[in-house]
């Protein structure tokens, strides 16, 4: 049913620079051991891929490199053709606005309502509530949170928090969407519904990378899978 835009069509249209490119990337936290080693892959613009692997394999760490929360300890990470290791602090916000992130631990602000949490990226970009108000209500209805618009995150269930986090990640129509286990806390029915949101976004041109170890979810979409094991990457052909 859900068919993300195909890789080949995209690389023809988007030209040479991929949205994300890793070249022999290694990463360690502080002086600890390398949690990622010799990682090389590309996310062509407009592609849709999964990242999978057992818990502790390094999925979250890899995603953190993409959304500029960490720098690689060796190798090259480039975003839209720019080397992240030489980016100035002042240049980061502009890149981050082009990336939407669903964090594994949601990172919703507990003193803000669901509405205000989802509005955060738009507020930071300088939009007023008049401009985004209706869009957010519509989006929240779509993810099934229409009745919890004014609730504070601590009063939400895990699944509801996850859907609020997804709404916040997609609300500004980012060029890249990174989702870290975005369906871990919802039932399979809601999981497929959320996945359809990502596919829809991908159809509109967003590059999507979803980390998940939910095999049935991955199988429901025909898309390439990057498989991590102990910090190393095995590329698997297709999910189905």
């Amino acid at each position, binding site marked *: 049913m859900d068919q993300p835009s195909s890789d080949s069509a995209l690389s023809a249209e988007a030209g040479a620079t991929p949205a994300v490119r890793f070249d022999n990337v290694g990463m360690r936290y502080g002086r600890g051991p390398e949690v990622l080693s010799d990682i090389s892959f590309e996310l062509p613009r407009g592609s849709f891929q999964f990242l999978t692997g057992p818990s502790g394999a390094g999925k979250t760490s890899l995603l953190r490199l993409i959304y500029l929360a960490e720098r690689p300890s060796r190798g090259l990470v480039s975003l839209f053709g720019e080397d992240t290791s030489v980016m100035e602090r002042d240049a980061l916000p502009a890149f981050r606005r082009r990336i939407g992130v669903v964090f594994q631990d949601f990172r919703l602000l507990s003193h803000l309502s669901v509405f205000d949490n989802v509005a955060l990226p738009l507020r*930071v*970009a300088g939009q007023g509530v008049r401009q985004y*108000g209706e869009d957010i209500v519509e989006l929240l209805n779509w993810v099934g949170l229409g009745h919890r618009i004014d609730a504070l995150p601590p009063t939400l269930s895990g699944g509801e928090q996850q859907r609020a986090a997804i709404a916040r990640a997609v609300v500004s129509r980012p060029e890249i969407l990174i989702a870290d286990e975005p369906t871990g806390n919802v039932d399979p029915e809601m999981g497929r519904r959320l996945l359809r949101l990502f596919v829809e976004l991908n159809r509109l041109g967003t590059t999507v990378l979803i980390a998940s170890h939910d095999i049935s979810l991955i199988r429901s979409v025909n898309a390439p899978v990057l498989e991590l094991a102990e910090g190393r990457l095995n590329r698997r052909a297709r999910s189905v």
Partner: protein
Amino acid sequence: MNKPRRPAPLLPEEAGRDLPLLAVCAILIFLACLSVIGAAGAWQAASGWSGQLVSEVTLQVLPGEETNGDEAAREAGALASGLPGVVSVEVRARSASEALLRPWLGNARLPEDFPVPRLVTLEIDPENPPASGALDALFADAPYRVIVDDNRLWAGAIARASATVRYFAIGLVVLMCAAAAAVIVFAARAALSMRRDIAYALHLVGAPDRFIIALFQERFFMLGLKSGVAGSLMALLATLGLGYAGGSAGALFFLPSLAPGWGIVVIVPIAAFISGAISGLAARLAVSAGLQARWS
């Protein structure tokens, strides 16, 4: 569903938590305002005194062997009254000089021909005093000697004293502003580390540092404004209270009598603004440094 929404503040309001900080800053502003008011009072008093001293010149006329003291004094007075800048002349009687000598000579009557110096008091126009040395030149050829005492010594001493008080007050104000800034830096750092989650979330949705800094700066500017109003109002009340409680207490602390009027009330907006600016700026520096310390 279509009700108008007002975006919530991104930094949570913490009414209770800011209270001790507000109190510390208000007390510092209170002390700073007191020293400003005190210095202003001392300065006012000093300029009043030295104004009085400057507007009065005393001539001591020492009659010579052949001259009559009263005549010499009258002549000196007449000469002086012709000088531009001299408003009026009062030739004191011999008894006035004798009264001044009494503590040294006792009640013994002086012989009639004893050369007691005579005093001539000149009232000077303080706006337009005679040129310096003009009085001395006036009596250069007179057959009697005239010592011109223009109280310069006293005026100088008072000016020095009031300058000292002023510098001392400025020093105190600077110290208290520095203390307030240090307290705010400390508090802003604590606020940032307590609100790392907010800074982190804002960063990751693409907020530049200045966006986050502005949140804290605004918060601390308001805090400084509040403590500035509170502290300066307290200082004003304390001054009024001391003024009413009795002139003696007021004089003891160099506080003005408040006779000059309600102009002193301007200290409230000025203190509020300065306190707000110091607080906002200190928070800005602290948060900016705190954010720069990390790459992400």
